């Protein structure tokens, strides 16, 4: 029973936004002179040819959906995954499943291009077997965001470079603000404490780890072995975070719960009442709002810079 519960949590956690894990990132995609036909190299180094401007798009991945709408391709999106709720208009499109993709629904929508995050269960291969043209796009870090904007722009025939530049400018503005801070507070970002003995946090290679860095903080798990490591309460107490950040969703702990945990009253962030929550959609999805996410995080870590 326990293992089933655990699997349930892991699936929840790693569902859409983080299902790829650590896979090496290829150099920038190639492109032909005129927009179409275009041959692009996707996030799995697959070569994908798009013969003409795609008119019926299906997006499997909330961050992809957000990019497509930001690129002005929203009217051409006919289907999205169940988690795509940004912008609000995206949720009105036909749904094609969540953790498990409903292949029949995808085929029935007759898309001429399908975007998908990485899947390890053969979903991409099945979509291809159904004669669909699939482009794998799976941003996992802040630096992936510009690449995603550019790649999606080329795929749909929109100005991806322009979007990438404006996103980068906003990120750089936050970086400039936090560049010369006197102190970089220790930050503990909690992902899931369902197992109180081994709490999921963020490690190197994760999007949130990048955000903490840009915000001018130091992630207490910055030297962990994986992108989503588990820490014991002993380790968290020992590292004495000055700021604790929680996701403001139904599944995450509340600041009061965290402060009330046995032994945690010794932690600086608890003593000084610096336990904050942040909009989950901002931090779970490396999307076009990355600049906004970096700024929101920086306001928690260095509120003095934003007065």
């Amino acid at each position, binding site marked *: *029973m*326990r293992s*089933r*519960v*655990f699997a*349930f*949590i892991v699936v929840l956690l790693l569902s859409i936004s983080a299902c790829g894990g650590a896979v090496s990132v290829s150099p920038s995609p190639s492109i032909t002179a005129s927009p179409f036909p275009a041959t692009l190299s996707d996030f799995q180094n697959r070569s994908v040819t798009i013969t003409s401007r795609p008119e019926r798009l299906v997006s499997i991945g909330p961050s992809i959906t957000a990019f497509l709408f930001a690129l002005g391709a929203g009217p051409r999106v006919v289907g999205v995954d169940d988690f795509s709720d940004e912008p609000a208009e995206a949720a009105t499109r036909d749904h094609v499943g969540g953790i498990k993709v409903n292949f029949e629904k995808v085929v029935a929508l007759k898309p001429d291009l399908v975007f998908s995050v990485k899947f390890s269960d053969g979903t991409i291969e099945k979509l291809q077997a159904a004669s669909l043209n699939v482009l794998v796009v799976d941003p996992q870090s802040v630096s992936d965001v510009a690449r995603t904007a550019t790649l999606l722009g080329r795929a749909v025939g929109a100005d991806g470079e322009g979007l990438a530049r404006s996103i980068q400018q906003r990120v750089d503005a936050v970086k400039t603000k936090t560049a010369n801070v006197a102190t970089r507070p220790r930050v503990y970002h909690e992902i899931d*404490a*369902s*197992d*109180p*003995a*081994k709490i999921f946090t963020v490690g190197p290679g994760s999007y949130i780890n990048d955000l903490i860095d840009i915000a001018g903080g130091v992630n207490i798990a910055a030297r962990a072995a994986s992108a989503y490591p*588990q820490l*014991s*309460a*002993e*380790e968290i*107490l*020992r590292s*004495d975070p000055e700021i604790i950040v929680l996701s403001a969703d*139904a*599944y*995450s*702990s509340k600041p009061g719960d965290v402060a009330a*945990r*046995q*032994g945690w009253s*010794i932690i600086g962030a608890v003593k000084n009442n610096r336990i904050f929550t942040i909009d989950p959609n901002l931090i779970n999805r490396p999307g076009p709002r990355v600049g906004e996410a970096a700024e929101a995080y920086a306001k928690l870590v260095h509120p003095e810079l934003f007065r």
Partner: protein
Amino acid sequence: MRTLSILAFLAAALIVSAAAGILVGAVAIGPSDVLAALFGSNDVNGTIIRELRLPRVLGAALVGGSLATAGALLQGLLRNPLADPFVTGTSAGATLAAVGAIALGASAPIVPLAAFAGALVAVTIVWRLARLGGSTTVLTVLLAGVVLTSFVGAVVTFILVSSDRLALRLRAVLGWLQGGVSVISWEELAVAAVIVAAGLAFALFLAHRLDAYAFGEETAATLGVDPDRTTTAVLAATALLSGAAVALAGLVGFVGLVVPHALRFAIGATHRRLIPASFFAGAAALVLADLGARVLLSPAELPVGAITGLVGAPFFLALLVRSRRVVV
């Protein structure tokens, strides 16, 4: 005399296991710092030892001691070496009640009481079924346990999935299901300790009646033991001990089966010895199992139930094969 020395040995084993459990953890703390922490040093080491490790070790000891004692009681009552709170579904009944209480927002003192009630209902059902079973008692008890456990699994899954719709406290339930003995507050520990003390005193008081029971109910009656009252009392003591154990640690299997069974070889089947010996040995065994759970795959941690299952399940199968009553 021999009994006393065995009890002293088991108590010493418990103290040594507990010391090991306090010395080893996710963060390295030297023995002298651990000693300083136990006696009130005010730094982070003190907090880690006093607020995290000590309650964990004490909780594991209480859980192991309770389950082993409850196992000894059930084995005596059912005259069946294959009984314990886990395989009879008693722990499952306690789990269901505890999950229900937590999902509805109950706090620390309520959860073990609910678990006690759930355990009492489950163990009474099993007892009634066993009495119906006649010569197939062993199988009936085990099947009743399987059925209760899978029923509880289904209901818990239902609670987890419907928690949104029914406005239940999903996170609290998940935390409890996942936590095992890993995170135990002093408040939970205090409530459980009172219940365990009551169950243990009850069990010691019932020991000589169970010894009379070993010869069958009719013989017990001729020896002046009222079978119905004894049965009720043993079921209640079992439920107190199993309920407290489940409230602290969730489902932990096979401790109640293996420990009393192994002890019978060492000290015989007399319950006056078996019950206190089971408590100490079960406590030491689960403290060691929890230590193993923390150390084996470090820095990852296994649930303590995985360790007891690894050791206990093969032991259970071996017993099942040897039990002629089942093979027929």
